[in-house]
């Protein structure tokens, strides 16, 4: 279609404005991470007075960042694997079977998305503490407790997206597998899963990002040993003398894995979302 001139002008203006808004904090993060400390202690400098990689070396000593990083990797990784596995089975059941309670299940699971996190925080805190006292199974302030909590956070949206994805896979595939003598489990694992890889990848990225970025439960459910990046990073900011160049370097380091993952798999993410949204 022919585009009138005003559309091009509006597009250029609006998109430039949005780009500026988007880039400003990213520019602050990246440029400040290579500045010497004097630059971030006085008025803002657009250009570093001296380029240094010192902050990237220092961050590992100022606070135990490596330890936090490892905790975050372990917790987010385990939560993702568990959440996606559970979601695959649930989504397949909702997509392929007509059973009593199917609609109720879908609504109930999605509605947990609207519950305020603060509502479960206090009871879950007390439940974890008391399970520990009664049975000796430590859930409070451990990585296990955090994994269990986080895997349910991404579960509703993962199931919703995967149902949409599975719905777009022709049923003929299931039926021919069944004629060949495959049970539902084998049909799911050998026929459906390979076809649904893009959707599963998108859901995995989503789960990982959810766990990697969670702050509320991490701030209450972790202690010195199980501290994750979400809380650990604030250790720099709360000390009396804030080393902003180090804070920015650390923020950059913890962002790179998830941002890279998301941007590389962006296309799958959009297609997974489309599959869920078309319904």
């Amino acid at each position, binding site marked *: *279609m022919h*585009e*009138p001139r005003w559309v091009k002008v509006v597009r250029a203006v609006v*998109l430039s404005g*949005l780009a500026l808004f*988007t880039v*400003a*904090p*990213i520019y*602050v993060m990246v440029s*400040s991470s290579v500045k010497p400390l004097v630059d971030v202690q*006085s*008025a*803002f400098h657009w250009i570093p007075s001296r380029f240094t990689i010192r902050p990237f070396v220092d961050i590992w000593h100022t606070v135990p960042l490596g330890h936090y990083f490892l905790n975050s990797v372990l917790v987010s990784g385990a939560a993702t694997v568990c959440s996606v*596995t*559970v979601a695959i089975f*649930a989504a397949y*059941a*909702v997509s*392929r*079977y007509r*059973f009593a309670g199917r609609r109720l299940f879908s609504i*109930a*699971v999605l509605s947990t*998305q609207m*519950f*305020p*996190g*603060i*509502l*479960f925080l*206090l*009871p879950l805190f*007390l439940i974890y503490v008391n399970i520990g006292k009664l049975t000796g199974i430590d859930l409070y302030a451990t990585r296990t407790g955090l994994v*269990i909590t986080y895997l*349910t956070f991404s*579960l509703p949206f993962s199931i919703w997206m995967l149902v949409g994805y599975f719905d777009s896979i022709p049923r003929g595939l299931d039926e021919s597998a*069944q*004629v060949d003598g495959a*049970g*539902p489990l084998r049909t799911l694992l050998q026929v459906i899963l390979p076809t649904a890889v893009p959707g599963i990848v998108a859901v995995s990225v989503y789960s990982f990002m959810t766990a990697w*970025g969670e*702050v509320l439960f991490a701030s*209450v459910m972790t202690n010195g040993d199980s501290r994750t990046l979400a809380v650990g*990073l*604030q250790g720099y*900011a*709360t000390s009396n003398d804030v080393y*902003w160049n180090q804070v*920015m370097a650390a*923020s950059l380091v913890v*962002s790179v894995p*998830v*941002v890279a*993952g*998301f941007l590389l798999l962006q296309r799958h993410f959009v297609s997974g*979302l*489309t599959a869920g*949204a*078309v319904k």
Partner: protein
Amino acid sequence: MPVTRARRRRRRFGLRYQATPYLMLLPALVMELAVHLIPMVVGVWMSLKGLTQFYVRDWSAAPFTGLANYRVAVDLHGPVGTDLLHSLGVTTAYTVLSVGLSWLLGTAAAVLLQRPFRGRGLIRTLFLTPYALPAYAAVITWSFLLQRDTGLLNHVIVDDLHLAGHRPFWLIGGNSFASLVAVSVWRTWPFALLCLTAGLQTIPDELYEAAAIDGAGFGRQVRTITLPMLGAVNKVLILVLVLWTFNDFNTPYVLFGKSAPRPSDLISVHIYQSSFITWNFGLGSAMSVLLLLFLLLVTAAYLTVTSWRRNDA
């Protein structure tokens, strides 16, 4: 022979696997029950107890106080009740502004990025980056950007553009609310863009071609095709954004630390602080339950209005 064998197998399949969907749902159900439903029931029970700091070690010993916690939470003559109402007002304003602006920016960008042009993929990737950034990393960066003496914002306003003679504070006082909304929009609008981009892809090109043949210009096409066709996506998107924003904890908590300034006292942080600073879990739970009831009402009203409008059309 092969035919009957296949049929027999199919019949067995049907009988034996009646339980299959339930078995497949079981892990998801158990997890949701364990982390969401049971704690919710426990939360309601806690809200009926005088669960103060004296009973944290042995919570079963806390006395049953009935609706006392609720009475304190909604008592508009007491400090707790007025603070909660104030926090609710702040959160409502925050949600309306943040979701409204995020939706507007998301729709504008999605429509403007619909037609291919040079650099489109790059811009789209750039726009989605804030969504991919971990909340705390993004918000910490904003808190540096908003620092009074060392931040970028005051440098631009005071040193570069000379718009103000003195350096305003952005993280305390009245300005903190504007800062909070800006950070929230920055983090939220890419999600709107993502959903609306996905929604736009489902609109068939023929509709635009037909409209163009009929002589409809760009503006008219957006009004008569794009926006109405996005109705279903918008209905879900706005609800999800409202609920996420209303319950937002990350943005205020990381931006302001443990003590949010009063003009920016969002409800999640408010409940968090009143629970963990005074260790009054009973009162905190009562406030959480009230918050849930409020959100249920809002959701019910929203769904009623949107489906009523659709039936009407």
